[in-house]
């Protein structure tokens, strides 16, 4: 074999290997960019999509202010918001103190109410333990385990 051919093989093969890696990285990149959600999540469409035209007043977002999910935002629609550890909750908590179906926020005529769904450790609205449905005013903290949420307009 001619020396030049051997050198061609030598560097050509290294090039081929690295081309494979770059191809793989392109896939990784496409996956990252296509899937970038970060910490700011919007509600899955089933909750937000069928909403009618929102009235100008009233809270628009639910923000997690403390706990592992801190920073998560959920856009409010007409649909109720389920909070808990269960996979099909609107806000899936990874909090060890939360129950699988912990609390529900419901919209009644533009006003939001919080309801405890029989959780073990309870839901608190501004120091007060939630027994029946309670009206939430914007900025009032809702505590579930280590997680705190509030409504913002």
């Amino acid at each position: 074999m001619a020396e030049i051919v051997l050198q061609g093989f030598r560097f050509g093969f290294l090039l081929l290997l690295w081309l494979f890696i770059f191809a793989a990285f392109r896939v990784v990149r496409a996956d990252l960019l296509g899937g970038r959600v970060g910490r700011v999540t919007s509600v899955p469409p089933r909750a937000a999509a069928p909403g009618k035209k929102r009235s100008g007043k009233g809270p628009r977002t639910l923000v997690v202010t403390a706990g592992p999910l801190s920073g998560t935002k959920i856009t409010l629609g007409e649909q109720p918001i389920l909070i808990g550890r269960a996979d099909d909750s609107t806000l899936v908590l990874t909090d060890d103190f939360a129950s699988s179906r912990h609390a529900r926020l419901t919209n009644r005529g533009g006003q939001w109410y919080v309801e405890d769904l029989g959780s073990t450790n309870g839901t608190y609205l501004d120091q007060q333990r939630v027994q029946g449905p309670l009206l939430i005013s914007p900025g009032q903290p809702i505590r579930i385990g280590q997680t705190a949420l509030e409504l913002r307009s």
Partner: protein
Amino acid sequence: MAGPTTDPRAAAAPGTPVPTRRGTEALLLVFAVVITLAAQCIVDLTVTGSLRPELATFGIWFTALWTVAHVVVRKFAPYADPLLLPCVAVLSGLGLVMIHRLDIADPDAGADAPVQLLWATIGLLLFVAVLLGVRDHRLLSRYAYILMLVGLVLLAIPAVLPASISEVYGAKLWIRVAGFSIQPGEFAKICLVVFFAAYLVDKRDVLALASRKVMGLEFPRGRDLGPVLVVWVVSILVLVFERDLGSSLLLFGIFVVMLYVATERASWVVIGLLMFAGGATVAYQAFGHVQARVDTWLDPFAYYDGSGYQVAQSLFGLGTGGLFGAGLGGGRPDAVPIAKSDFIGSAIGEELGLFGFAAVIMVYLILVERGLRTSLIVRDPFGKLLAAGLSFAVAWQLFVVLGGVTGLLPLTGLTTPFLAYGGSSLVANFGLVALLVRISDAARRPATPHVAPQRLTDAPTEVVQP
């Protein structure tokens, strides 16, 4: 495990189908096969100056292998990660080429590459069997304790068997029957990772929450240390009875990391390191073979005529390879004893150089990254832990082996996953990848149309759904 996840499904607009990425996988698989065949041609042309007729058989067989794998994934795990299979294809292909290259270098010893191709075929059968048999990875957690028993029995068999059957190069970790040698530890690894995942999902609340604070670190209660102690004792027993540093290091490392992943508590890592340091010191004092390993690691050239010969030759090989390597078929990787299995890393380093070696490590890195990413986006905690554990097992094993080859760590009896000659390692790792593919399929599959939530409101705590 807590914290926001980057879930690609959430970004998909309603109504648009989630891409399965199977086309990407097919393209990359073709690329992987091309790389393998190119390498095979280069080796033959460089060493003998002509192409062998067997090359066609090899090419067809190898292509068929990955075609089958791709078709099975397309059919039974359509949303699986597109990078897992191509990475494995490149690695196992390169392994086959290097083994073939070492065959040529030493024609008297008999050809091992065809045998390895046969093992790869068996591995593929296991891959298909796992994908078909395990339709939902969560089912595995039901059999956790059975798998633990199987794993422990597999680990223990070589220790009990007479040395004539189980001992190779001083380590008793084989079963050699009728010309076949199996290293059951490789399969035990997977069984135990499944068990760890199921166990830790069950117990992580206790392990994470009940604690005492000592010097700024939160330490668990004494009684919660039980399982760690058991695993530690088992891995020490493996070390004592099978004289196998590698398996015991592998096992203990995997367990400590899975514990850390499950509880998010750094104190477990500290405890693990302390226990490991204690165990290692005692082992060093008590056992001659551990002492010998450490001594040759500290100064391989002082033992050049004896136990350090292998490492010293490997270091020479890596040095000869330099940045760009000697070219496939251009080096003398056969100068290292047992280059096909333990020291395949040094053969690659010599012929492909630092750049090639780094590329191979990069392919492993991509494989592990995809595994960890699967762990991030899958929804159920068992799947998360299992994927994290399996990918860490690959990374950790690679680190320990390549550390040994490059002189960073003492030599252990572990094999380089997918690359090295050795049937059980290859077959077991194909099984491992099948599990990862299964979990990643579950992770990337779009959520099924929403069904009305069951009435679980009466159940106050987490309902365990196996």
